């Protein structure tokens, strides 16, 4: 077995080759290195923290299952990103059949249920909301294919070609989705932008 001193100092190619030989420390370093990006991407695509975390579990299982077939001369993250996006799409397809836990459904738990109240939204907390939070909220309201495409473009900073490759769609579709997503975002942020622009 190839001996490695510090896994944190290894580049992706080395880690992949080690992980392909079953080196679990190399795999853990891959998990460490990409967990935040995977969770952030999945949370944004799914539009919920819970779903993003669920997807991250699947993504890491999928990486472990498939890493031996990965071409180690290629860059790792685009492959991981593609797995993540595909896992999100798969989950969104299944969504109609999914059972969501709702605390309202609990019947017998009187003495001990102490539940966060989603409706709680103190007026004074509004001042703390940052612009990026407003943008994120608007982004969450976009239909999923617009949201995912725009996110890959703006935050993941992918080219149109890379987006097309990740989502298995043609470049024309990527362009039209991004144009539409931008238009929808402008509409959703209209009120906020007007308030921001108001000099009074």
């Amino acid at each position, binding site marked *: 077995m190839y001996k490695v001193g510090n896994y944190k100092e290894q580049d992706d190619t080395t880690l992949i080759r080690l992980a392909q030989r079953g080196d679990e420390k190399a795999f853990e370093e891959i998990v460490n290195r990409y967990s935040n990006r995977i969770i952030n991407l999945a949370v944004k695509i799914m539009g919920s923290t819970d779903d993003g*975390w669920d997807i991250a*579990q699947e993504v890491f299982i999928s990486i472990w299952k498939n890493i031996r077939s990965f071409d180690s001369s290629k860059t790792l993250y685009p492959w991981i990103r593609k797995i993540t996006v595909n896992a999100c799409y798969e989950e969104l397809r299944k969504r109609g059949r999914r059972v969501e*836990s709702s605390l309202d459904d609990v*019947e*017998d738990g009187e*003495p001990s249920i102490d*539940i966060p109240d989603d409706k709680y939204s103190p007026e004074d*907390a509004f001042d703390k909301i940052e612009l990026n939070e407003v943008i994120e909220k608007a982004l969450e309201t976009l239909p999923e294919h617009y949201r995912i495409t725009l996110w890959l473009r703006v935050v993941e900073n992918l080219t149109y070609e890379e987006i097309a490759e990740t989502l298995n769609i043609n470049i024309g579709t990527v362009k039209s989705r991004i144009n539409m997503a931008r238009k929808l975002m402008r509409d959703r942020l209209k009120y906020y932008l007007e308030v921001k622009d108001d000099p009074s």
Partner: protein
Amino acid sequence: MHDVIVVGAGPSGSSSALFLTRRGLDVLIIEKKRLPRYKVCAGGTSRYIFELLDVPPECFDAFSIEKVKVCYGDRVKEYNLPSNSIFTLHRDQFDYRLTQLACQGGAKLVEGEETIGIEEENGSLTVKTNLGHKFRGRYLIGADGIGSKVARFIGGRFNYRVPLAIQKDIPYRNPEPAISLFMGLVSMGYGWIFPKNNTLSIGLGAYAFSPKKMPEVLSRLLKDFDHRDIPILAHPIAFYRGKKKLATRNIILVGDSAHITDPFSGEGIRNAVKSAKIAEETILECIKKNRPLSIYTEKLYSIMARELFLAWMISGVFYRFQDKIFNLMDRFDMGTILSNLLNEKTSYSQLLKKLLRIIPFGLL
């Protein structure tokens, strides 16, 4: 004015109060119920927790567990536990005793009063209760559980899907000192029978599973017991879901208020007490150096976040492939793994590597 006001007398609040009174601080605990009060909890604890508290398990009437049985359908795998490594306890007694110890050390207790408001003025905090009382403190510890009002006050947003635990506590004389864990009942979760002193706690914890269907699944574990007049009680579980704001310059969140329950085991008490210890250290350091408590968030996550994240990843493998994992259990000693995890002798990082060694490529 009190040095510290603790809102909530659960494991994290009462242990925070205990730790801080030991350091000579003036601590006030405000608890909305009168103690002792019942809490739905499997009550699993480990020697590590008692060592952290520096209080022996006998003080809480803890019940020492000698075996763990892992069940899947009709199949059972039994493992011995290292002696005096895992315990169970009644939460009403545990929380009450911890609070008593804090009070014996000088903490004051206001019980049966609910915190309804917090105000901050000129560097001090005023806590208002539903009975119209006001209490002033320099620092505040939010230990008021998963729906924490203190967390809302500081703007910590925890809008997550909440896993649920349901349980029946059945009176039972001299139970066998063996915990039973049931796999294969729900897709993401497990069932349990935890013996305690004169009680069996029989429960089910599940994530992304219909709460309406949970009692039906639980009934499979209850079939051999007379439980007709005993209600099923439920409790949401405050799983970790990424980093959030856990402190301001004079307020800290601990335990379930901070959403740091272990997503693999569902165990909440250990991290509750750990967070109380970190709160104690942070408050003392900040008093000494006259610094804001805000450093607590980073301090806590630097100790816990990595492990909590890996616990979530491992639970993904463990619970999604329960049948395969159960079959592989001959290759590892689940008793030792559980005992070491709960006693922090094994990290989730080590467990992940162990699982990856055991689980071949392509099996999942």
